[in-house]
């Protein structure tokens, strides 16, 4: 069981839409598939997808036009990056740092490792 498998489905779907926005598959002010379309495509209950859209709307990643459906917010990319950064710092980073501590990696070693990684 990894972190992703463990996430509530509606949040996994939100991540999927986030990925599509970051990759440019969904563009600013572009239309997002309807709840039913996406539900059928990914074989997930429509109410779960509706919950994803509520969540994305509340976090300002998508907006709704009455009768027309959902669209990507012009600032969606920045918002997703910020929220993922927060998530990383609160969740996975904590686990990761715990593992580093457990095997005795020093801050200096970590700095070197990260620098090497960036230089690759």
């Amino acid at each position, binding site marked *: 069981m990894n972190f992703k498998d463990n996430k509530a*489905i*509606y949040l996994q779907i939100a991540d999927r839409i986030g990925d599509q926005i970051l990759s440019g598959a969904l563009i600013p002010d572009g239309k997002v598939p309807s709840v*039913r379309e996406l539900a059928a495509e990914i074989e997930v209950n429509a109410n779960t997808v509706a919950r994803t859209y509520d969540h994305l709307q509340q976090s300002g990643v998508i907006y709704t036009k009455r009768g027309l459906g959902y669209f990507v917010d012009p600032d969606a990319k920045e918002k997703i990056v910020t929220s993922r950064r927060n998530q990383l710092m609160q969740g996975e980073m904590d686990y990761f740092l715990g593992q580093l501590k457990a095997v005795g990696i020093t801050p200096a070693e970590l700095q070197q490792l990260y620098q090497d990684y960036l230089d690759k």
Partner: protein
Amino acid sequence: MFTISNLTFSYNKRYGDLFHDFSLELNAGNVYGLLGKNGAGKSTLIYLMTGLLTPASGEVLMDGENVRKRLPKTMSDLFLVPEEFDLPRLTLKKYVSINAPFYPRFSMEDMQRYLDIFEMGGDLHVKLHALSMGQRKKVFMAFAFATNTRVLIMDEPTNGLDIPSKSQFRKLVTTCMSDDKMMLISTHQVRDISDILDHVTIIDQSRVLLNTGMADVTSRLAFRPLREGDQPIFVLQSPYGPLGAVPAHDGEETKVDLEMLFNATLQNPEAINQLFTTQK
């Protein structure tokens, strides 16, 4: 949509009641997963809901009408896909021409589309008795969904389906579902259907052990590796270490593990009942 009240039923009085004072409410707009051990009464409940069995006392109402009366308006808006069934020695075309008239909203176009989803091709001249069990099930389900009844009840629909068909089945359910419809899926194959459910209903010998929305489960119970200080309701050993069903705190939300939820509910019904009846 369905009101089941105070049902009592037994197949044989000597062995006691299978259902005693059993009540349950089912609403439109939901896909229900009906879970229970072997012999818990899932199929019997389905036959009682569809007017095929008569309760000793109590009643099942669909839209306010007793299903046992089998009124045309009830039967034309209700479809049952049993776990096992025989199909007559007919072509699909003939079968449809005989049975479709009972369902006013039946759509041939829909059926073709659903057969396509199941990769069954569009050959209406196929002989039903020449099909394999899995193929028969797919053809029958394509017909069932195409009747466009508001109520669709399926007993172990994914039994006998091959691996790609299970995904196709989920696609069919999510494609066909709408706010005015109700679907009920009774199954042991929880992994096949977990993501398409709105609502989970776990029964055991007349008792409704759990009856709640999947979103409610997500907000009340977390399914994850155990941590120090956890007070799990259910623990499962895994290659990754112990996993558990733990009361969710501080907005923690995980993917619902139906299998663990089911085992937790059967092993520790009091704790589950307490967790799910406290006010949020």
